[in-house]
């Protein structure tokens, strides 16, 4: 018997007979066997699915963590670059100012009488309100009770259309105050309400500001031509009024043309990214890219001149 069981050909013959019988099995029995087998395999399917899902999760987790790490490194690099750019701009402006300052033989004598400045720059931080928040503020949704009793924002703000910051006359804000991010001008205050103010970004076509170029020379950065900066409405600015006789190059830095002794260095607008002049033109066509995108800001600093308290008290 054992020999018969171990004979492969006997087993094959028996299997053929069994196969023939099963081939002619009733349809119902066949379907029942198929269904039972599928049910029996179901736990295996579940295990394979779970393993597959775990592997997929693990792979995506590794990918996500790598992307997050790279993003963090990119953010740090961008911050470093921004800081370095600001430093270069500040140093360039200081160097250009030093070069343009005439040597005064009385400096050493007068330095003994140097006193503190009467006016010092004061920076007030303000939050830029989002479009939805600004709309709600103008519609009076935040002050609905006081709105009816005369506690309301100034009409100039309510009827205006520009973006808002959350500081107004109550915080000492005045029209034409410059808005800064670091040492970069991103706009100015256009209209002041009681609690909020309308701001005018440098890229707005209504923006106007005096500007001056700083260009690299063999001896270092020097002040160049002056002009009028205005926004072009497309995220950039144009510098007008620069004669074609003046030297201008792509990459030249653009600073504010308003000199203020209260400030340690000039404030930057951005950098020349396009420079051209058609034959017969008397002025350059200069496109300036702002150093900071005014439309992506959430916080700005309002630059004000304030009395130096130590000077007031000593005098």
């Amino acid at each position, binding site marked *: 018997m054992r020999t018969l069981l171990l004979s492969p050909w006997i087993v094959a013959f028996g299997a053929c007979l069994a196969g023939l019988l099963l081939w002619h099995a009733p349809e119902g029995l066949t379907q029942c066997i*198929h269904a039972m087998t599928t049910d029996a395999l179901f736990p295996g399917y579940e295990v394979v699915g779970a393993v597959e899902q775990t592997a997929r999760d693990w792979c995506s987790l590794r990918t996500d963590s790598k992307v997050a790490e790279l993003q963090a490194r990119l953010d740090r690099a961008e911050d470093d670059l921004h800081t370095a750019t600001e430093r270069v701009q500040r140093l360039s402006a200081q160097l250009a100012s030093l070069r343009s300052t005439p040597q005064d033989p009385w400096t050493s004598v007068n330095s003994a009488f140097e006193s503190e400045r009467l006016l010092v720059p004061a920076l007030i931080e303000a939050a830029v309100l989002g479009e939805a928040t600004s709309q709600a503020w103008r519609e009076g949704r935040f002050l609905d009770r006081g709105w009816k009793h005369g506690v309301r924002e100034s009409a100039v703000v309510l009827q205006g259309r520009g973006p808002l910051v959350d500081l107004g006359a109550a915080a000492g804000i005045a029209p034409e105050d410059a808005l800064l991010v670091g040492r970069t001008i991103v706009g100015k205050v256009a209209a002041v309400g009681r609690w909020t103010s309308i701001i005018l970004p440098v890229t707005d076509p209504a923006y106007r500001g005096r500007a001056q170029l700083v260009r690299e020379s063999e001896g270092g950065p020097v002040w160049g031509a002056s002009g009028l900066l205005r926004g072009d409405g497309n995220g950039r600015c144009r510098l007008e009024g620069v004669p074609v006789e003046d030297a201008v190059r792509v990459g030249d830095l653009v600073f504010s043309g308003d000199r203020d002794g209260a400030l340690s260095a000039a404030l930057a607008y951005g950098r020349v990214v396009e420079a051209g002049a058609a034959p017969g033109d008397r002025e350059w066509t200069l496109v300036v890219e702002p150093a900071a995108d005014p439309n992506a800001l959430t916080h700005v600093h309002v630059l004000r001149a304030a009395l130096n308290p130590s000077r007031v008290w000593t005098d």
Partner: protein
Amino acid sequence: MPHRLLVAIGWLAAIYAALVLQTTLVPQVSLTAAVAAWAVSRSPIGVWWAAGAGVACDAAGHDRLGLHLATYAILGALATAVFPPAMRRTGSARAVIAVLIAGGDEAARSGLATMLGRTPGTLQQTMASAVESAVMTASVVMAFVCVIWTFQRLLSSAGSGRPIVLANRWNMLTE
């Protein structure tokens, strides 16, 4: 007796896993044929397990029962007759038996389906599908043989459980 019971449980588990993987992940590879080939290569009684794999394959399919049972058993017996016992246990012989069972089973299945008019096709298409199944199954068997061989070489000496010895042996194998 407990040893035989464990072996039987092992073969049943292998057939179950092969069916699950074959129907969910890689339908082109006949893993049940690979298990049948492995069983046949171990001993003449492996033909029983080959027939068992054929029954499982029949039950998990959607066609009539019995075809895989008959082909697995016949091809298993044929492999037993062709290869002498000493040669049957080598890795290459296992791959050849896998080619025989997988290719023959696929040829029988698709040929019968074509003859019965269930699927349109030619003899060339039938042969192509049989060769594809045979080659892919044989490659899986060869990969498994390589893995087993590597682990056997790694663990073949006393005290090989120590990581340093395993590392040294791995270096010797891969140098």
